[in-house]
């Protein structure tokens, strides 16, 4: 496992650990002529190598913020900078992982993971990275399987491998564990932290699960209802690996739930 992580990083040195600056970002959707504001003046700086979790009620614009950071969409106002330069288009150095694995059903696990290398025309030179990525997520035995043959957890692991094979500096996780059963979710939470610590990317995680947020992230940002604004921020200053029964984390969790309006 450790060896394969090194192999993954042996690729040409990209800009590592992108820090993200979100400056005065507002965003609105056009719905049949009327404008629906979803995000309002968001200011947020994410330091390189940090793990930030975004929490908030459904529809508060968390996922939209991730899409804006990925560059798949442009904000209506404000700017987003990665390492100082504005994000104006999607780029394989910032990869969005969705709640659904969105693997291509017509392609094997191997081909799915190869997509990024193939799309950039470097598959021939860097095909070794695919096996390393599959090793990293523990899917080496499912190289030739089709997505419909995978369980939910395995499919999400494959989606992670498809992202990690590109050696992203910034990983944008949009409720990646949201649809998994609770046991698989607990396992993958641990694996996600391990991957983050090993591959050293910056991570922004959108989640509904407060326990997940305090377990994984070093900063937890709470957004208001739509249009989303930053309501509160919590620093989680506990060393990794963390334990979910850690009394400090439990206390913090209660505090965050209260901020979200859920007294326990």
């Amino acid at each position: 496992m450790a060896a394969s992580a090194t192999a993954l990083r042996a690729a040409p040195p990209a800009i590592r650990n992108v820090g993200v600056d979100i400056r005065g970002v507002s965003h609105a959707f056009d719905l049949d002529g009327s404008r629906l504001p979803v995000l309002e003046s968001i200011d947020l700086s994410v330091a390189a190598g940090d793990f930030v979790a975004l929490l908030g009620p459904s529809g508060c614009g968390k996922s939209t913020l991730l899409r804006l950071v990925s560059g798949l969409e442009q904000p209506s106002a404000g700017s987003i900078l990665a390492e100082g330069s504005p994000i104006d288009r999607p780029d394989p150095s910032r990869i969005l992982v969705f709640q659904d694995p969105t693997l291509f059903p017509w392609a094997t696990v191997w081909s799915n993971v190869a997509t990024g290398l193939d799309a950039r025309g470097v598959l021939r030179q860097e095909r070794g990275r695919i096996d390393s990525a599959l090793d990293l997520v523990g899917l080496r035995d499912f190289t030739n399987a089709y997505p419909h043959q995978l369980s939910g957890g395995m499919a999400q692991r494959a989606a992670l491998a498809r992202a990690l094979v590109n050696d992203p500096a910034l990983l944008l996780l949009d409720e990646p564990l949201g649809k998994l059963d609770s046991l698989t979710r607990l396992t993958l939470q641990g694996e996600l932290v391990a991957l983050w610590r090993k591959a050293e990317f910056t991570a922004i995680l959108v989640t509904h699960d407060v326990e997940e947020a305090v377990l994984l992230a070093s900063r937890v940002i709470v957004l208001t209802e739509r249009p989303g604004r930053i309501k509160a921020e919590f620093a989680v200053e506990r060393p990794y690996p963390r334990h979910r029964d850690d009394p400090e984390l439990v206390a913090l969790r209660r505090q965050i739930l209260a901020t979200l309006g859920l007294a326990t």
Partner: protein
Amino acid sequence: MSNAIEALEGRAASTPTSLRGPHQAIWTHGAVAAAAWAAAALVTLGLPDVVPWGSVDLFAGIMAGGAAVLLVLAFGAPHLSRFGQGLIHYGPWLIAIGVWFALWELTTAKFGWLPKPFFSPPNGLLNVYVTEAPRLLICIGYTLRLWSLGFFCGVTVGYALGVALGWSKRFSYWGMPILKLIGPVPATAWIPVTFYFFPTTFAASVFIVALASGIPVMILTSSGVSSVNRSYYDVGRNLGASEWYLVSKIAVPASLPHVFVGLFMGLYYSFAVLVVAEMLGAKFGLGWYIQFQTAYSGYANVYATLVIMSLICAGLVKLLFVARDYLLDWQKGFI
């Protein structure tokens, strides 16, 4: 887990044995089918014809030969592993075929309830194949040439235009209304125009077949491409894919199930217009032959040719199924 699989396999293996039980000594359906085929042969030979049709002995011989083979298989089939099992599955059909031929022979040639020239006994069709074989073979060749040229041209152009319609907003802005207007017009309605535009009548016929097969492929391909899950494109763009990559590596494979529906429709439509397309100054071809024989009330020849056409069409459909199962192997989990 492995125990469960073993248990499943054990049950699967034991089921056929228990099913085979009653057939173990003799395949009853096979014996009945042999009797039915023998009856058809006896009826054909034993009763006098109202009007002579020819090939009586040959037809009776084939039925009697079939009966003999079935009789042997009635004892042998239970002991043949795969072929035997497949045959046993079709037992009821084999009986029905024997009974059908016997009744067909009785109602047409023997009692004349279904009179000449509108109806023909099975030996009448057989006689067509025997006497007209060289001409029919040439016709088959001509028809296959016309069909394959028309179908492949139509499918290629229809597919390319379908991808463009489904992908490009501007192309769809101009193309979709035209397709919606042209789509429902029967391909054969274009015949007067094709006479003007095409140098030869053969080219005009190819165009008619191409149009009939191309339009359903175009419609289904465009709807397939435009209904691809948007998140697949997001994933592609996020991973650094160019527009061409999104089309060729995501839109095209994702729309393939739709495309195959279009191909099946195009195949049937192209066969439906073949007869008309071969009206256009053709000298050979199954469609031409059907029209020629219709004009001379040679309905037995017409029926015999229709049988050939449906066999060719069924064969091509089968081929298309094989291609689909191979290319859409990944779909197994969905359908």
